[in-house]
């Protein structure tokens, strides 16, 4: 187990290294010149341009730039934001709570809503099941920015139940209240997906003979569902749930921008537009880190859920 974990962590480091290089080169290969952005379109002499380039190390060879950046990142220094004229680390740090709260809220909605809906559909064939299938079909086909628009126009503009974009509340309760529409917009697609996965995993388990055996022994139906059906369906639910959670990291930029939430996702979009390389690099790298950590957590949970699965092979022993 210790060896396995070590291997996984080394793999994780390798993934991050490769990603860091890809991110760095992609950002540098993108069209547009950061120097022009820094000058905000003001005309400047070639000398002035060169001075700015030197200040941001833009005059060095590409590989040297990459290695310098990587070395700094390893020391926790992500460079300075061109746009905000501030160190990237603290900048992201100040935006992180908003995003964390939003993603956490959405994750709870996805897990609770998705799993409950899926369970309900599996246990109530007929009308309820059909309604859930249609509902989740619509939900999975609706991208977050569409749900955002729909939610705002219905709940913020017409009904006025929730505040519209751009406002923030105070205190945890207030902030959560203000984040409700963004969290729902973020959660809808993935909750639909998780509901469908839960439903089919439950149906598969319901058809298993050991479920019938448990019933045939006089075990109450509730216990049968909980201990055998739901427990057996947990594997696919957790796997897809993990991927879902990782998906939230990506969709959050769209939703934060749509609802004007001060978070890391919005920062990413602003920085891409402004060609603020250090911020884009740092946020992308952190997102990949989040992805990889979630996957690792899911893989580590596997053997706990199904004792036949060995962590080393990831398959049935």
């Amino acid at each position, binding site marked *: 187990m210790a060896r396995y974990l070590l291997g996984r962590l080394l793999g994780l480091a390798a993934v991050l290294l490769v990603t860091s290089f890809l991110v760095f080169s992609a950002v540098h290969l993108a069209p547009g010149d950061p120097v022009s952005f820094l000058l905000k379109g003001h005309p400047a002499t070639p000398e002035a341009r060169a001075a700015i380039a030197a200040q941001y190390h833009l005059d060095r060879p590409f590989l040297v730039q990459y290695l310098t950046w990587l070395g700094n990142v390893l020391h926790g220094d992500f460079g300075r934001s061109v746009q905000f004229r501030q160190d990237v680390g603290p900048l992201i740090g100040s935006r992180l709570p908003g995003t964390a709260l939003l993603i956490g809220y959405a994750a709870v909605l996805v897990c609770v809503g998705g799993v409950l809906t899926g369970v309900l559909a599996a246990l109530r064939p007929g009308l309820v099941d059909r309604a859930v299938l249609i509902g989740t079909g619509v939900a999975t086909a609706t991208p977050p920015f569409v749900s955002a628009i729909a939610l705002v126009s219905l709940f913020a503009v017409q009904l006025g139940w929730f505040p519209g974009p751009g406002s923030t509340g105070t205190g945890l309760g207030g902030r959560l209240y203000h984040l409700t529409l963004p969290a729902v917009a973020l959660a809808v697609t993935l909750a639909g997906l998780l509901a469908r996965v839960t439903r089919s995993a439950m149906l598969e388990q319901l058809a*298993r*003979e*050991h479920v*019938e*055996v*448990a*019933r*045939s*022994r*006089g*075990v*109450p139906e509730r*216990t049968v569902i909980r*201990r*055998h059906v739901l*427990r*057996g369906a947990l594997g696919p639910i957790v796997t897809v749930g993990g991927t879902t959670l990782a998906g939230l990291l990506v969709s959050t930029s769209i939703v934060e921008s749509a609802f004007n939430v001060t978070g890391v996702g919005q920062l990413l979009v602003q920085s891409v537009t402004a060609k603020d390389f250090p911020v884009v690099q740092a946020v992308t790298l952190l997102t990949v880190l989040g992805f990889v950590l979630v996957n690792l957590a899911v893989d580590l949970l596997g053997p706990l*859920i*199904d*004792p*036949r699965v060995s962590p080393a092979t990831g398959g049935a*022993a």
Partner: protein
Amino acid sequence: MTPALLEIDGLSVRLPAARAARPILDGVSLSVAAGETVGLVGESGSGKSVACRSVLGLLPQGAGAEGQVRVGGRDVLTLDRTALRELRSRKVAMVFQDPRAAVDPLHRIGDFLTEGLRAAGVPADRATARAAELLDAVGIEDPRAAMRRRPHEFSGGMLQRVVIAAALAGEPDLLIADEPTTALDVTTQAEVIAVLTRLQAERGTGLLFVTHDLELAAAVCDRIHVMYAGRIVETRATDELFARPRHPYTAGLLACTPRIDPGAPPPRPVPGRPLSLAEAPAGCAFAARCAFAEPRCSAETPALRPHGDGLAACLRADEGILA
């Protein structure tokens, strides 16, 4: 005669219209007395499993049933939820064909064993002690350690012993074994049968033993019911059935059972393919495969009538055609 433990009386089962309405069982009657072992024999698809599951009140979803399934005089088909659970945890238990499929792979063996007892309201420590006792009785060494292991750490034969132990946990009056050894190899099969019959004899449990293996049924059962296409076609004491079958299907099954004794004729398969009740034409369902069929066999459905010391559903059962 003591009142039978189990009396299935004219049981007919149909699948609902939503699921390709078709009949599965037609007028099945059989009985098992306390301590008696009764065999239910027939080819695949004849409805043996549906008949046994009905004893626990487990019918295919939405299926309609006619007739009665009485356990200790009470009709299982009309029991409410609570009574049904009481029946399942105290009176009737079932051993299934494939132990791998019957045991939830995610839980420990101990949990599987005590689950039924706990459902019946037995306190945890007593249930555990009883489970260990039962594992010992079915020949599993170091029961306490075994209870902490998981199903995939057991061989098929060992796991089937666990399933038998679990079935006996609630001290049922009636045990139903649905092809309990079909998924096991021959030597394991013999051991598991030995365990099953020994415990059954010790406890005086009634046993309904389902198999498609006539030799095995002969070794285990006092009486045998032969099933074909959802109907019972012959019922007789085991010796009688082997010595003088009255239904051509029984004779066919006997002829296709391989014998080990020297000089025995080679097995002869029953020609044609087994039918399910839904496919069966009017008249005798076996007529199309029967060497002795006459035109009237396809016109008239034979009823199960006394012939010799048992019952047979054949229009020509008294004509000595099989002699």
